């Protein structure tokens, strides 16, 4: 029995590892190919489309000013630009800061939501913003984002040059990467996620997931979809699937870069990731087990991926951990032999080499320090995900059983971004 379980867990784990390796190769190939797309982008000076940037902000007084400042710096014809900052029922100075800027800059608009349309989470705020917007293209940034001046230009150029793209996603970088070991780990994680999952899936399947910030989408599509799903915990994944259902794809274009702030302590990290994980679980239930029809079969790849990640892969890892520990106490008569150690070492090396490849795709990221961080990451950060997934699954199950309402947790922000930005 223990043998059977061990083999099952190994197959689950390695199925996932190979899929990731496959995606990583795609990411690598995309990097080699991406320069060509960038060179081929064309637009005549008069035909820039109107862009509306939506920035939902709920008690964001710490970060919102920097975000607005970076909007002002954007390299895009200002008469074609509209920045809509949605002050979603804030109780701090957020609204005042927004207003002060909207007075000075005509392309910056403030939207203040009030009950009953307020405090309904990010989806609700975005829907409010959408109502006030006029652009053909809608872009979204989180309130803690500071996009590079060319970010919007690239997103728009990408959409204009690719008719089949319903949306386009840029790359995000961690602004506080060097703050502490946690942000350093998150920095490595986000880089790997983007080159492996985003670029890799884009290369092989023409698929990308909207990450919630630094993306642009055609207004026509949003209207057809009726905006964001206010019940969804991770509205981005949800939106991505619906875009695919319309027959469009979502392009990954890493030249459009934004910098964002990541959690600086475990508590914040835990809460934020729990929301993500629960969001993904919600999507699995809604589409895979629910009655909603999936028009675009490609989405199954992603749903299956989520399903695999959350249930089977982590289940497999958990199972193999349990078997390992139990085997230390009582002899389970495992017959697998030497190959288990070979797999253990190969799996570890695969992780390290994969992440190092992702780091080498960015300037100055593959450093000695980061290399050791990757080794450390395998033993700590990666293992933390197991508990996170268990916890999130538990919460989702509880929610479904008790029919609880979805509550949106807003990620806590941290001060002193300026200082860090200089150091990056």
């Amino acid at each position, binding site marked *: 029995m223990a043998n059977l379980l061990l083999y099952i867990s190994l197959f689950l784990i*390695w199925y996932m590892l190979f899929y990731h390796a496959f995606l990583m190769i795609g990411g690598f190939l995309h990097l080699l190919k991406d320069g060509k797309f960038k060179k081929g982008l064309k637009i005549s000076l008069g035909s820039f489309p109107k862009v509306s940037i939506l920035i939902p902000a709920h008690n964001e007084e710490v970060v919102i000013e920097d975000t607005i400042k970076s909007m002002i710096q954007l390299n895009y014809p200002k008469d074609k630009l509209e920045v809509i900052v949605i002050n979603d029922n804030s109780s701090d100075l957020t609204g005042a800061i927004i207003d002060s800027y909207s007075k000075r800059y005509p392309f910056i608009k403030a939207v203040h939501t009030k009950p009953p349309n307020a405090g309904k989470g990010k989806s609700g705020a975005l829907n409010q913003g959408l109502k006030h917007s006029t652009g053909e293209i809608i872009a979204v940034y989180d309130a803690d984002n500071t996009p590079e001046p060319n970010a919007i230009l690239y997103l728009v150029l990408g959409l204009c040059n690719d008719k089949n793209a319903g949306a386009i996603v840029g790359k995000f970088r961690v602004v506080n990467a060097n703050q502490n070991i946690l942000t350093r780990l998150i920095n490595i994680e986000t880089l790997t996620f983007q080159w492996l999952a985003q670029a890799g899936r884009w290369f092989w399947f023409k698929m990308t997931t909207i990450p919630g910030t630094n993306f642009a989408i055609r207004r026509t599509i949003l209207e057809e979809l009726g905006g964001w799903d206010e019940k969804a915990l991770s509205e981005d994944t949800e939106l991505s699937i619906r875009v695919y259902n319309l027959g469009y794809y979502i392009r990954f274009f890493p030249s459009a870069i934004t910098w964002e702030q990541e959690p600086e302590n475990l508590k914040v990290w835990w809460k934020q990731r729990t929301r993500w994980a629960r969001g993904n679980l919600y999507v699995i239930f809604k589409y895979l087990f629910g009655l909603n029809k999936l028009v675009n079969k490609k989405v199954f790849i992603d749903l299956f991926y989520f399903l695999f990640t959350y249930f089977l892969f982590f289940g497999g890892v958990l199972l193999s951990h349990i078997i390992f520990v139990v085997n230390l106490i009582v002899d389970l008569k495992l017959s697998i032999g030497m190959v288990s150690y070979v*797999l253990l070492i190969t799996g570890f*090396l*695969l992780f390290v080499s994969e992440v190092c490849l992702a780091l*080498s795709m960015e300037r100055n990221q*593959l450093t000695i320090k980061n290399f050791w961080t990757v080794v450390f990451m395998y033993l700590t950060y990666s293992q933390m995900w197991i508990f996170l997934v268990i916890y999130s699954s538990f919460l989702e199950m509880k929610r479904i059983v008790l029919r609880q309402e979805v509550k949106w947790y807003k990620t806590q922000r941290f001060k002193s971004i300026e200082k860090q930005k200089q150091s990056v």
Partner: protein
Amino acid sequence: MGNSRGAINKSSVLFVIATVLIFWLNVPTGSADIKDEAKVLVIYTSRDGEIDEYQRSLDMLISHFTNDVTFISSEEVEKNDLRNVTHLFYYGQVNARLPSTFVTLFDDYSGTFVAIGYNSDQLGDKFAFVTPLHEREVNQVNLTSNKEDVFDVISQNIIHIEVTEDTEIVIEGKKIGDIISYPILVKNENHYFYAVDSISSQKSILFGEILHDIFNANHDAKHPAYIRLEDIHPLVDPENVRQIAEILKEKNIPYMVAVIPVYTNPITGEKHHFSNSPELLKVLKEMQKDGGSIVLHGYTHQFRESETGEGFEFWDVENNTPVYAPPDETITLQNENDFNTKAEYESYIRNLQEYEREYIESKITRGIQELVNYGLYPLAFEAPHYTMSQNGYTVISEYFSTYVGQIQLSDNDWEIMDSTPYITSPSFLNGMQLLPETLGYVRPDDPDAIQNMMKKAEGFQHTKDGMLAAFYHPYLGVERFVKLISEMEKLPNITWIDLKQTDLWVKADHVEIYTENGEIKADINRGGLLLSSLDFPLFHFKKFVGLVIWGMAIVGGIAVIAFILFTIFLQSRKTKMEG
């Protein structure tokens, strides 16, 4: 049929070559020309009128020469039974008053007549040339044709006889130190008298030799031999076995491997199969490919809570009866007196034997099937501890054509077991050929073990085609094996038996194994076999999974190397662009 003459010629040439090859390669067994002719009747007088171990010992000796042997009790024999008989034996194992018919019973019989033991004075006047007196003890025997070659036997009683002058003494014996020799086997025309009451392998070596003359069998003076690696169960250390196999391969000696498919831990009751011992399985397959032939040595080699290799499997040693009940059931065997009629008793015994048959059949079938599923093809059977009832041998004979080892000769006591000097197909083995083990084995605690075995070998060389066969437990190590095998190689006129070169078959549900031109052939109903137990497909599945797992490790390794190369490529490109 060929379409042209050329084809016919070619195939007939091939046929001739093949036939010659078979004759050339075949181990000398009972010669074929005699077998067809000799028709043997053995009239016996035993303690209770039934065939017992003594008659079976004689059976083994005679069946070296013919397959046509009939045993009839002196109480039941009629004149009619003598029709067409070419060789008549009377075996008076006990002193008895023979029926009055005996006075004239043999009047019309003029063929070869061999009398053994008691009551020779009641066989009409056929044995008037012998006068039995009292008994004597001898422990040294020799042929009168070769008086120098005296050899020691286990001390035995013989009937001291006086013979007429025209009688030839063929074998004589004496007690060590004595001067007087006593005749043991005498001949008068075509009448022979053998002055012993009990027959056993070691004591009957010279008698066995003279039987060649009695049957006019001109066998080659070659000693068939085998070495059998014993008790190879799933927990045996593969390294010892592998090394021994290598030595035998180097020496080009074919050999047998007695395999037990399941090891049962006596304390935990846990069972280990070869599927859990891939290393050993690999070695066994390699051996089978080289000179080794697999012999099925039971299925678990144990019963109740005993340990594999130690326990009895087909004999209930605690009750000293055949296996008549499941291990957790205690039965007290009833005897004939407990029943009102003989028919009731017989039906009682039949029921017990039916249980025994089912028990043996299930184990043997499973044993054969399990080995075949691994790709190991058993070619013969050897009962654990050589113990098995007569009913058991009958069951085995439906599965195997060849039996290896010694034979339990009585259903009353497992310890009554013996070998025989040469290859034979005794009638009680129901057509199975017996490849007797004659030399024993290397006893772990006996430093002179090999020496003693060679002493036995010396004895069996006194029969023309006497068997020189031994077995060895590989756990004793390679060193002692090398000693044993080099001693055996020194034995003169030795020819190693290769089971693959002998004509044999093995049958079980979904499996049929036979040999053809030295190759193992197997007709296997794969589907049926895989469906007969979940373990069988599971074994192949596990093997496949094992391969896949290794495949994963290899592909993973390749991916690691690829990623390192990609990283180096990107780093060098960056340096170039920056430079």
